[in-house]
């Protein structure tokens, strides 16, 4: 390799070592993407068995959304308690398709994804 090429090679190595944090503002993931990630992860979790029940989730210190709260009160079996309420919720659909979807339920993960 000639001296010039070696010099260039060294400069590019330095360029590649520049910390990514040097960027003025690293880009945030779109909330739509976060919503889709969450949905697909929960779907994958369900494929290998039941989700943790809503009662256990609550007992573990997590707040439930109004829909989950209602569902937890009316469902008696463990299978029903493990139901993924988000799968039939309009908030999920909105959040997966709209950036900053107009949903305002407390303890809804899709709302949290839209927050800065």
């Amino acid at each position, binding site marked *: 390799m000639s001296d010039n090429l070696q010099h260039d*090679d060294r400069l590019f190595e330095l360029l590649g070592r520049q910390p990514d944090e*040097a960027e003025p503002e690293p880009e945030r993931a779109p909330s739509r*993407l*976060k919503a889709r990630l*969450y949905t*697909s992860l929960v779907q994958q979790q369900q494929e290998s068995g*039941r989700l943790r029940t809503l009662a256990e*989730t609550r007992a573990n210190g*997590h707040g439930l959304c109004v829909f989950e709260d209602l569902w937890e009160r009316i469902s008696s079996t463990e299978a029903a308690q493990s139901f993924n309420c988000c799968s039939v919720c309009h908030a999920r659909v909105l959040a997966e398709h709209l950036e900053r979807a107009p949903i305002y339920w407390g303890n809804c*993960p899709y709302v949290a994804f839209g927050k800065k």
Partner: protein
Amino acid sequence: MNQEQPQTCQAEESSAGASELSDRDLVTEVLRKDRKATAEFVARYSDHVYAYVRRRLIPRADLAEDLVQEIFLAAWENLDKFRGDSPLRSWLLGIARHKVEDHYRKRLRELQFQDEDETMRDEPASFGNLEEALAKRQAGQKTQEILKTLPETYSVILLWRYWEKRSLRDIAVQIGRTEKGVERLLARARQQFKKRWYERQSPARR
């Protein structure tokens, strides 16, 4: 799972202190299929993974979302292997790095490029203010802008060689080309990058 962690996560500390759950506790909760912990997992790490992938996929940042989804699903499949020896963010970025390299391999195999030796013409006399910018750690943004404008083969080979620090031999083996061929491609990519860097200098500095 990964010998060398991506640059973004070197020397960083666990984010455990910033939130209620430590990395290890969060992983335990996600493995128990706690939906709220899963939501926190996404909320806590998706920005880091997305930013890393987007920068590495220039100029095909449009593919970043699908790749990030693949990374999180791969993370879920392997989450039981997380031992907590390194921060969860580093572990995730390790998976991201593998996925990005898979992408590079695939793209360089798909995209056509010439193996023949070409005469380098119109090479700018100097690399302008690059060394100065490097010293001041101000090269990042301009570099990203230039990478966006390069043909994809050039940006992929530059990112793979210098940002992911892969040797020419490794790259050549992975894409089924000769080391010499990859070296020539890299030289052309550097030349194009330099040319654009030089063109973007303010007239006063030329």
